[in-house]
């Protein structure tokens, strides 16, 4: 199915839309061309989704294919698992990614394992979209970044788009991947814009993107942190520091090769993500690099800049300090490049 769509097409200069719009456009176009695709989640119909991603889709496709559920995260996830297992391509929405705590059994014990447990004979081609991240003042129970939990679950794939262009193309690949895919959308990213092709296109899963080439330091960043790292790179360029920013796009399977080659080139690595640092995805990247051929090229310790090891606080200022901001990336990158460690 994916063959139908162009891969990584160039983005037309003028067509700048937000990430919310890109996702909505992708969902609409996918549903228009494939009746096996449907949407399911809390308040995705007439409400349009808590972040507006599905706004208007129920008018076009009706309540059967844009399906509001009661507040029952386990059953709504099961609705995806069971329908995917029997010929459909469900796209679920977890209104806030935090609520996935109530759907872990269906995702981890069922969706991820069904194929393997049954000897490779069943498939669960579902996508679960999750609105993740802090910065909206919603405090500890509405601001989680839990992607590394799922990276740790064989059978699942984990995708984290970093802008509108990436979001649309990765969504298409996720829907037709044939496996259960966790698709984490950052809430602050929703309102950011960039150029996005109008037609459906795909960005392959498992392929990282060198979002910016540079020679002094590799930053591996995910989701909204790619944008922040690019901004940091712009600022540091003024000081003559050239950062390379690598966006893995897919956290599992991870494109080791692109990451390793970048570190071999720059000799230095900084990993940036919003999720709590301890136990997070940064550890996986650090460990892979430290075990890889790039190890011998490392000119400095591997550094991580993750979220602080704390729940997200409500207060606006505290909240900002709990996760990496552009200035934190600038400072950390500068230190690493200048040999402070």
């Amino acid at each position, binding site marked *: 199915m994916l063959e139908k769509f162009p891969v990584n097409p160039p983005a037309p200069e003028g067509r700048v839309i937000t990430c919310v719009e890109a996702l909505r456009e992708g969902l609409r176009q996918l549903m228009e061309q494939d009746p096996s695709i449907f949407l399911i989640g809390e308040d995705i119909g007439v409400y349009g989704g808590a972040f507006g991603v599905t706004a208007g889709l129920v008018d076009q496709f009706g309540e059967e294919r844009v399906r509001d559920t009661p507040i029952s995260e386990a059953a709504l996830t099961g609705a995806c698992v069971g329908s995917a297992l029997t010929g459909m391509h469900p796209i679920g929405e977890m209104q806030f990614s935090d609520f996935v705590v109530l759907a872990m059994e269906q995702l981890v014990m069922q969706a991820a394992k069904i194929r393997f447990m049954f000897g490779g004979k069943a498939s669960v081609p579902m996508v679960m979209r999750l609105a993740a991240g802090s910065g909206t003042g919603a*405090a500890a129970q509405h601001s989680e970044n839990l992607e590394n939990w799922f990276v740790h679950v064989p059978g699942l794939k984990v995708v984290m788009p970093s802008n509108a262009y990436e979001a649309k193309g990765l969504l298409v690949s996720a829907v037709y991947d044939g496996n259960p895919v966790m698709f984490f959308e950052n809430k602050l990213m929703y309102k950011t814009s960039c150029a996005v092709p109008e037609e459906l296109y795909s960005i392959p899963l498992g392929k990282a993107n060198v979002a910016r080439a540079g020679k002094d330091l590799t930053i591996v960043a995910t989701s909204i942190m790619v944008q922040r790292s690019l901004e940091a790179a712009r600022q540091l360029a003024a000081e003559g520091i050239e950062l390379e920013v690598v966006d893995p796009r897919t956290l599992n399977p991870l494109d080791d090769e692109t990451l390793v080659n970048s570190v071999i080139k720059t000799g230095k690595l900084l990993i940036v993500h919003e999720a709590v640092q301890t136990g997070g995805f940064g550890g996986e990247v650090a460990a892979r690099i430290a075990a890889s051929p790039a190890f011998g090229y490392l000119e400095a310790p591997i550094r991580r800049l993750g979220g602080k090891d704390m*729940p997200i*606080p409500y207060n606006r200022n505290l909240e900002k300090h709990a996760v990496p901001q552009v200035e934190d990336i600038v400072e950390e990158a500068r230190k690493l490049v200048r040999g402070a460690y």
Partner: protein
Amino acid sequence: MIHPSQEYALDPKRAKQVLKELGPETGRKFLETMYTIRAFEEKAEELYGLGKVHGTMHLSIGQEASAVGTSNAVRKGYDYLLNHHRGHGHCIAWGSDIDRMMAEFMGKETGFCRGRGGSMHIADIENNNLGAQGIVAGSLPISVGVGLSIKLRQTDQICLVIFGDGGSNEGAFHESLNMASIWKLPVLFLCENNQYGMSMSVKRSMNIENIADRGASYGIPSRIYDGNDVLAVYDAVKWAADTIRSGKGPVLLEAKTYRWRGHSKSDRQLYRTREELKEWQALDPIPRFAARLVEAGYLKDSDVETIRAGAYQTIENAVAYAEASPEPDVATLMEGIYA
């Protein structure tokens, strides 16, 4: 169709009796607290509009009777309260300090949670107000633990846990009511059925009419009442609390009520009609109760206005307190995570 608020209306005789039992002082206090809640919510909305608070908030305008009638029918501060996301009203009715609530709402260091919790997580631990909740039905399993703790410690406390109609569709509802029932725990499960869980009406989210009827699945007695009549609320909760304290195990209550505002600020309210809202606004619990107090001769019309004005002043004072309070110091960012 009979309006739910009428269908489950308190018998007029009984209403009189309850009012009499309460007496003028308590009646006046009830009215004052309802006004205070209304004023708090209106101010919250205003502050949000001004950008002085951020995040999200869930206003309980229209549901004040439920908060006031409930808290006052249990032993606030001795019993336990587990609150939910639409919880400002219950917190105020419980008697938790309004200045510190407002400070929390504004993210200040003097707030109940030092500005870490915000609107969805206000707690007053010292007074056994165990906090509001950002996870729908998240406090139901906790209530089992609180009930169990009471049982093991052999006190005569009860645990009051608030949730919405939407929350009753979470698995946690089922597990918690079942567990509380088999162990006869002193838990008062209180469902504020305001007809919607975000955009989904009760009619769409379940195939039966009353959430209270789900008590039968667990052998839990239940009662439905007009949640917009503070006397009906008080009467039902009192009955439930007495039943629980007599050792008969948990009770499930369902207040039929309605929220006037959108679910939260991002809500365009396309899922309901203006007419429906108006019908319910005609059942505003505050003037209804004020009229009763006047009718009973407990208050004069002018008293009502004095009470109302006082409530709004209380909130102004709270805002002043909150505004004057310091922001949390970033140096304390990581405090309070571990004991």
